[in-house]
């Protein structure tokens, strides 16, 4: 009625078995087990704020990024018009400064928060998680600060 394959995981095998009834194989520690390291409470509104920010910034970014792409790549001669003069001309107006600044901040924070959740979901060891997040936050802060500095201190008479 059956054809069985003898396997090490099921029945007795030749030679020495490492494990028996008195000395079973170690099990993986159950998740959610309350240990001394378990924090008392991890409640707070940060995750809610982050979740809400992703939705709201996403909606705003659709407008900002599509508008940006349309302006840069499609309208008025397409991509070939982009040069130092074009950017300088645009940043002469406070409207485009605010547009670009908003796009920079929202896109960076949106992307960084998305990557933070990816790291949270996929990093298995606490140390990996720490380093990946450290790298992510450093890169984010650096890019945001540099971009903000450039937008505010941009001088078209660079030479």
């Amino acid at each position: 009625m059956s054809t069985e394959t003898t396997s090490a995981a099921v029945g007795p095998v030749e030679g020495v078995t490492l494990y028996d009834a008195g000395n079973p194989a170690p099990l993986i520690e159950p998740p959610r087990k309350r240990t001394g390291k378990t924090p008392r409470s991890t409640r707070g509104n940060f995750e809610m704020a982050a979740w809400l920010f992703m939705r709201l910034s996403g909606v705003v970014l659709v407008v900002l990024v599509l508008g940006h792409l349309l302006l840069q790549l499609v309208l008025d001669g397409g991509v070939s018009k982009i040069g130092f003069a074009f950017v300088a001309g645009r940043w002469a107006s406070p409207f485009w400064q605010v547009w670009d600044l908003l796009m920079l901040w929202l896109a960076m924070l949106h992307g960084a928060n998305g990557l933070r959740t990816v790291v949270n979901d996929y990093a298995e060891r606490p140390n990996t998680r720490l380093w990946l997040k450290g790298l992510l936050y450093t890169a984010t802060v650096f890019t945001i600060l540099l971009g903000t500095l450039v937008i505010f201190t941009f001088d078209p008479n660079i030479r």
Partner: protein
Amino acid sequence: MATPVMEKTAAKDSAPSPYITVTFRIRRFNPEVSDEAQWQDFQIEIDPKERVLDGLHKIKWDVDGSLTFRRSCAHGICGSDAMRINGKNRLACKTLIKDINPEKPITVEAIKGLTVLKDLVVDMDPFFQAYRDVMPFLVTTGNEPTRERLQSAEDRERFDDTTKCILCAACTSSCPVFWNDGQYFGPAAIVNAHRFIFDSRDEAGEQRLEILNDKDGVWRCRTTFNCTDACPRGIEVTKAIQEVKRALITRRF
């Protein structure tokens, strides 16, 4: 003249046998023998209108008594026999052989994300810990009424879907976020919190929402809909989780 009994047996012999040969490929693990799990094939004769659980019974009773799995009622109510059949979480007692292509080997393994104790039996403690954490019981203040706590049909309808949960863990163990570190509350706990949060008779909704406003609470849900697909009771699990999220933001429930 033949007796009715003989006629019956003759008729039975001429009818084609309903039995077909099906291969069950089962993920076996026995910590008393090895620290590694292995696939083992069993070939059994089974009616395709029977269930996967019947096949497991045949193997355990007639072929290999060491095969270990949980089942109690065997009729889809107790929620003991959730397992990963052909890569999808289902109840073995509600899955017919004919519905999962018996021509190929049927793979059966323990649900993922929980510690396997033996063969198809997992340690359910973390799952029930998350369930207990959301306080799955009626909380009220004031004097106890001398009669039933009445509720309108509409108020009852509000949480009807989530009362159907049988705590089989098919949803929680299909959730990729739960697979990672197992700290996420999991769909089942949130479904059972939803059942009381949206109950007009219950008064601890705020408290439960606060519990789920955790780092590992509802906000870790990525809406992958694995839980809704896995639920053997057809509960719209992801929808319930989203409703809890909305209640947390608007504080209206």
